[in-house]
């Protein structure tokens, strides 16, 4: 394939520039699967390791990440940032009681994730993109709204949280499909493949195109050059899965299965970061409004989270696989 041994310059395409930090997006479709729990714990552990970490609550309209950290709603947050065009993003990042960890609150009455205007969205995205730090952990909202998908696609590390229940898997899968097609849509215009893809989608019954992986293969056949380029871009879409609230050995086996199914379905890389056991300590800690990691450092969950955070900490710095 021509793309393998030639270095092409893609700098004219949007999304080429590297962010000023390692951006970690935590999404996953369904509500209540533990996105906020996971992102707050991950940010805390990365901060513990000595990395300059920012935790951003992007679940606008239903922000509650401060509760996981035991913080109060006070001071400026994303809401104020969006309302005042003169405000700089640094001014809404506030310190927390924990070393190396800073926090951006999303609490507001005014804004909803679906109510963001295009300029507001762009401004917020650039701010997150250009804020210098070691890690920026973004806690996304449930559902597959365009804004959420864009935040997710912007990140270097795309983490999906799901639980072993069929409803959660279904939502996670549909979220992944939405992400895939949003990225595809962006690149198809850039590469001039819009007509070709529309044609293929129209004939997908006759051609036997059932999965995104099939679709990419067909594009590569019909348009060798653009297709290879498209495949190259789509390969950058790497989902990293966290299986939360597992309760039995049987649940733990589900992780590798999900990974295999996603790989076959999308034809893009997919990693399993690990699984987190179901633990009552989570809601006990939440009742006390104290982070679990501070109160229960001996728990099994702590070691599982610790192992996952290592996956992030060990990347070659600021050159994470996008």
């Amino acid at each position, binding site marked *: 394939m021509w793309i393998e041994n030639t270095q092409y310059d893609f700098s004219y395409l949007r999304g080429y520039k590297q962010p000023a930090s390692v951006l970690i997006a935590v999404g996953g479709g369904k509500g209540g699967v533990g996105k906020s729990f996971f992102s707050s714990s991950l940010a805390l552990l990365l901060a513990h390791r000595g990395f300059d970490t920012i935790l951003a609550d992007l679940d606008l309209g239903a922000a509650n990440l401060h509760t996981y950290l035991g913080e109060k709603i006070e001071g400026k947050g994303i809401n104020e940032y969006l309302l005042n065009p003169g405000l700089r993003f640094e001014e809404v990042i506030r310190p927390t009681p924990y070393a190396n960890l800073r926090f951006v609150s999303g609490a507001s009455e005014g804004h909803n994730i679906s109510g963001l205007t295009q300029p507001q969205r762009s401004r917020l995205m650039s701010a997150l993109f250009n804020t210098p730090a070691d890690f920026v952990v973004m806690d996304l909202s449930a559902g597959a709204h365009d804004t959420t998908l864009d935040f997710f696609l912007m990140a270097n590390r795309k983490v999906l949280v799901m639980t*072993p229940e*069929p409803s959660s*898997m*279904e939502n996670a*899968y*549909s979220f992944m499909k939405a992400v895939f097609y949003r990225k595809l849509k962006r690149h198809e215009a850039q590469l001039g493949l819009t007509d070709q893809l529309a*044609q293929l989608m129209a*004939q997908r019954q*006759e*051609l*036997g*195109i*059932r*999965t995104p*992986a*099939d679709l990419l*293969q*067909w594009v590569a*056949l*019909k348009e060798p050059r653009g297709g290879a380029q498209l495949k190259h871009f789509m390969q950058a879409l790497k989902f990293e899965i966290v299986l939360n609230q597992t309760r039995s050995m049987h649940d733990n*086996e*589900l992780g*590798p*299965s*999900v990974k*295999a*199914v*996603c*790989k*076959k*379905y999308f034809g893009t890389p997919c990693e399993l970061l690990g699984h987190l056991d179901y633990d009552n300590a989570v809601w006990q800690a939440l009742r006390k409004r104290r982070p679990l990691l501070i109160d229960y450092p001996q728990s099994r969950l702590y070691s599982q989270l610790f192992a996952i955070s290592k996956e992030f900490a060990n990347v070659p710095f600021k050159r994470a696989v996008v």
Partner: protein
Amino acid sequence: MKHLGIHSQSYYDILEVSPQAPLQEIHRAYQRARVAYSPDSPALYTMFTPEEAKELLRLVEEAFTVLGHEERRRAYDEQLLREKAMRELPDFPDPQQDEELSSERPLQGQPETHREAPQTAPAFVFAREPQLPQGHARTRLSTYPLNSEMEEEIKQTREFNGPTLQKIRSYKRISVDQICDETRIGKSYLVALEKDDFESLPAAVFVRGFVVQVARLLGLDEKLVADSYMKNFKKYKN
């Protein structure tokens, strides 16, 4: 015509192992894939239909039959290398076909992939649509002529013991060595199993596992065979 989609993947891609993976790893990958694509796997929900999952499972079995066997795997590797070499040949158009190339190809129907692989594929690599001689049937390990009396007899059998299994095995033209290779059950155990020599067999749990594996290779109902065999076995042990 080459197949697209899942059928175009190599056996290594299907099992998601590297071509250099040792045998144990292929074994593990096979077990993982069987769990992932089993009909009741929750991971498949809304991604693949049951029919697609069945096809995937069939491909996984097929991949393991080749990669799990040293000889077959080596031959398969050679075939892959040959195909790769063919693909990487520089693509000079044939001057005589120049005109044909320049005319626009219709977009409908199956497009042509790269050059066809040489037609010297080794015999053990399964054809995608198996073509059987008239009046023959196929198991995973063998092809055998159909005998309606025998088929009927197998269908009627409810009680399976060692000699019955042996009879079915020789009818289906599978040797003990083949089963031995495939399942990694010791040959002495297989022989004892067929002779109903319960004294030489290990504990009941193991024997049940053996019987299930043998039944699966013979294309019999695993549960039925294992239950009836184990009844005899337990009667003897008590």
